[in-house]
């Protein structure tokens, strides 16, 4: 039986302040590791960076991996256009992220934590280091061997891709690796690594504090729990909101739109543009057998009203990808360039409208042949914009 979508519901787990982290850390490291893993698995928490991999499974696989040298990495390279929630989490409740990292270390058998912080958030480095010092002091006090260091990025979106992040941490160009092997067996320094998004770690804190059920009871089938959304664009309420998963886009627009919403970009430039006519049938959540279209997202929601040109949107996204592509694989490197040149040519009338079909085919090819998620995801926005707003692409 397929569950109905939920009405929009605000929850408050992530940003609510507590002074319990010391208690929760101590309690957790005295629980059996298998129990902690089972707690995460039964919560059905999925990665909140955009890819949505089951977190419990990730920690389980890494704990089972061979080797005594393992790593816990917090992916704070938030760079998807329209996403700014991780910055807020690290500013307001960083101790939740640190506690989660330490518990993860305990479970998988690692005493090495790294926070890869994007260069654009350099101003967070000092305040975060202060919290880390306080955290480390407590860890020493309770004889927990877990160090956390910050590694600063230097302005490269692709370094948010997990294997590119390992390359960057190792002092190289941030060029994604082939998968398999997956990080749980071969990650940073080719050792078993848990790499999680900032928000994902904050949610594990909630789960270790309140138990899996409290998290699981929110959301819908395949999309349990709450998610922090970054909302911007043509909206009277821009900002960060923690909402239950499983809402329909129509309810979302009713709450956050400005009354004239033409389209919503779900999931940033790597995501999908949903036109007004599809709001009702679109649900925000991970893939599953939901009614209509279900869209996973890192939480970036950008609203556009009728004054906005969808051509300008696509041009902006393609320019972004063309620039941020690492360049190592031909489908992405050349594909991004050609898609951008292509839509410009059609818009100027230098190519006839049917050329758009060729470009759509190209984006599909990129989806199947690009080495990493960047090249594979360009088709998402390309196809959704061109197919739904074809008339705006043409001279």
């Amino acid at each position: 039986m397929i569950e109905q979508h939920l009405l929009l519901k605000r929850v408050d787990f992530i940003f609510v302040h507590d002074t319990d982290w010391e208690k929760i850390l101590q309690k957790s490291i005295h629980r059996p590791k298998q129990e902690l893993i089972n707690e995460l698995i039964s919560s059905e928490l999925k990665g909140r960076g955009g890819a949505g991999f089951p977190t419990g499974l990730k920690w389980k696989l890494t704990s089972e991996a061979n080797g005594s040298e393992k790593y816990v990495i917090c992916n704070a390279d938030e760079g998807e256009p329209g996403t700014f929630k991780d910055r807020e989490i690290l500013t307001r409740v960083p101790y939740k992220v640190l506690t989660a990292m330490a518990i993860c270390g305990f479970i998988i058998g690692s005493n090495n934590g790294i926070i890869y912080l994007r260069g654009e958030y350099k101003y967070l480095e000092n305040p975060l280091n202060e919290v880390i010092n306080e955290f480390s002091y407590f860890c020493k006090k309770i004889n927990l061997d877990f160090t956390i260091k910050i590694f600063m990025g230097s302005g490269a979106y692709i370094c948010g891709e997990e294997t590119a992040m390992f390359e960057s941490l190792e002092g190289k160009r941030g060029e994604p690796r082939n998968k398999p092997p997956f990080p749980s067996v071969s990650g940073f320094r080719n050792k078993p690594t848990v790499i999680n998004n900032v928000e994902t770690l904050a949610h594990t804190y909630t789960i270790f504090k309140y138990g899996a059920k409290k998290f699981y009871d929110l959301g819908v089938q395949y999309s349990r729990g709450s998610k922090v959304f970054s909302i911007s664009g043509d909206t009277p309420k821009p900002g960060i909101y923690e909402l239950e998963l499983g809402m329909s886009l129509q309810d979302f627009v009713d709450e956050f739109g400005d009354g004239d919403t033409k389209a919503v970009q779900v999931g940033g430039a790597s995501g999908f543009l949903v036109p007004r006519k599809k709001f009702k049938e679109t649900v925000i959540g991970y893939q599953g057998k939901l009614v209509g279209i279900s869209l996973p997202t890192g939480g970036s929601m950008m609203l556009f009203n009728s004054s906005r040109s969808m051509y300008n949107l696509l041009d902006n996204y393609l320019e972004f990808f063309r620039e941020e592509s690492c360049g190592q694989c031909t489908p992405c490197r050349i594909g991004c360039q050609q898609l951008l040149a292509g839509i410009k040519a059609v818009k100027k009338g230098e190519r006839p409208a049917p050329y758009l079909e060729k470009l759509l085919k190209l984006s599909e090819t990129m989806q199947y042949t690009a080495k990493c998620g960047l090249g594979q995801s360009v088709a998402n926005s390309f196809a959704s914009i061109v197919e739904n707003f074809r008339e705006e692409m043409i001279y």
Partner: protein
Amino acid sequence: MELHKRIVELADLHGRTRESLLPILQGVVECENYLSKRSMTEISKELDLPAAEVYGTATFYSFLEFRKMGKFTIRVCKTISCSMKGKNQILLAIEDMLKIEIGQSTPDGRFSLVETNCLGWCHKAPAMVINHEVFTELTPEKVREILGVYLKKEI
């Protein structure tokens, strides 16, 4: 501080392995405002890495500049939310006030102007950073005020 001394100091702090490369490159940019051929050669010697490898890594990252930047690098976000909330007006205001275009530096070496991608302040667009300080909800008026403050700083 003299370049070679600075690099040794950075290597003492971050180590002399391949993994120390990025923090050291960042440290050099912090004090020199760019990476010269000489600095990369010095780093390659200090870390015992091929200079080509140092160059290869350095050129990947957009915050590691290869032309001499001003004391204050202005990075204006050009991604979609900022773009539709008036980024171009902000750029015009900066260009008009400082008499430079994107990619240029003022003759006195005080400012450089570049565009950058999503800074993570979309709900308060348009946004820019000057070195590491972020400024949001910009208007041409606000920009002139901010630059006025930076014009008075010592360089």
